[in-house]
């Protein structure tokens, strides 16, 4: 059956059997290998993805269920970053040469391109924004800094669960190429400071992501650290 899915800033068309799960679609058809194959029963959270702003398990969702819907995986994080706070954010992008393995292109061109893609998210691609693809989201960086990764199998799911929590708390806004549905952030009166999630909220958000090596203390620490950073950045 034919499906049209907005996947990480790109409208993609697929033709798959009716019994294809979203997990199989993402890994085998779309090449999103950050989405991991775990329990296939919705217990481990290794296959977590964001569908229309909500974190879900891709293994217990048919691919057909996301037809005409929007999916974000870890491969879409550069797009989330580029649209996080518009031009102000992009002015702070480091020089490409400052980034290990950077593409070495002119940074001012990169900033200009990022601004234009923020206004036109459909145009966002790795070719146009190589430097953004070399950067880590503050959340990803916090996982590295807090040593919250060992084998890394559960990490993409934890990153996306945390991103969905940040979106819910209003710390970030998840981009959309459809602009029809998006997660509703906590309503906050103008002028009131953003608050990071509490440790309990982080623990609840990560409760569906099982880790068999690092444990949970370091990932929770990483998420809290990233939240503090996002709050301090405003």
């Amino acid at each position: 059956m034919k499906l049209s899915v907005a996947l990480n800033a790109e409208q993609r068309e697929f033709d798959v059997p009716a019994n294809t799960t979203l997990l199989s679609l993402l890994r085998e058809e779309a090449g999103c290998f950050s989405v991991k194959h775990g329990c296939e029963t919705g217990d481990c959270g290794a296959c977590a993805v964001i569908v229309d702003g909500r974190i879900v398990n891709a293994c217990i969702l048919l691919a057909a269920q996301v037809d005409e819907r929007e999916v974000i995986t870890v491969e879409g994080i550069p797009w989330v970053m580029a649209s996080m706070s518009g031009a102000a954010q992009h002015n702070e992008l480091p020089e490409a040469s400052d980034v290990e393995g950077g593409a070495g292109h002119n940074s001012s061109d990169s900033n200009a391109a990022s601004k234009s893609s923020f206004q036109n998210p459909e145009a966002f691609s790795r070719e146009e924004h190589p430097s953004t693809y070399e950067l880590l989201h503050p959340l990803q960086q916090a996982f590295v800094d807090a040593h919250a990764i060992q084998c890394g199998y559960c990490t993409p799911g934890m990153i996306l669960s945390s991103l969905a929590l940040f979106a819910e708390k209003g710390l970030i806004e998840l981009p959309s190429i459809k602009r029809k549905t998006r997660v509703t952030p906590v309503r906050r009166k103008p002028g009131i400071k953003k608050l990071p999630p509490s440790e309990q909220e982080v623990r609840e958000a990560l409760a569906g992501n099982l880790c068999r090596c690092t444990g949970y203390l370091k990932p929770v620490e990483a998420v809290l650290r990233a939240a503090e950073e996002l709050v301090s950045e405003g």
Partner: protein
Amino acid sequence: MLLNLRKYYRPRSIEAAVRLLSANPERCVVLAGGTHLLASSRRDVEEVVDISSLKLKMLKRENGAVHIGATTTLQSILENPRLVKFAGGILVGACRRNSVSRMVRNQRTVGGEICANWKRSDLAAVLLALSARVKLMTLSLEEKEMSISDFWSMPAFRNGRKGSGQVPPGLLLEIVVSAPTSSCAAFEHIEQIESQPSLVSAAAVLAFDGNRQCTEARVALGSFADMPCRLPQLESYLQGKVLTPEVIESAGSTGWDEIRPLTDAQASGSYRQAIAPVLIRRLLRRCSKEA
């Protein structure tokens, strides 16, 4: 994975969905959130009818009753600030208890919990204690309203749907829940670890008069027998009584002759028989404090 699934439908109207279900009732099933169906690996399912476009995702309060659409997710009930204190918080408590995973709660629907996981669901026990009513569209396109216990008494549930060739009763549209005024409610459960389903869950809704005498009692158990059950002997015992420690103690040992406890991989019948009175006493103690 549904190995034999051949066709996926996402109809835009309830009538179209029911026609699809009635065209092949033995091999065609309803797909709501999919958390139970996709994890079940059923071989008998050849067609699914995805009901996500039927606009059954809704939550509203009317005349003190809560109307919950069949495709309302458990997470959206949790997030609704108007439901936090409804019926002593037992509805929200049962939704939270359903799964520790937000991912699962974002997908899992109330309708799916009632139709696919009703035997082991804490939410089913809570809805039974709250005397919930369900609205469904039958396969002959008649809209019916009935109590949730009558719904589970239908042949498709009584004999087990899975692979049995049973015809589904129709399409569940809505659940209506009301809490009696001046009542208190409590929900208790026991499990091996927090992320596991409950071994036994119990819910009670008790109404009291000005003298703290019980005027109405509804007590339900989940995961205890082969289906969620009320305890009529216990309920009639509690009528007109003040919940003193002595009454609570003897209530815990009342009414167990009428139900045969379930034995499965999670717990033996004798364990369930031993633990259920403990949960009942805890429920009554909590209600007596609020009375």
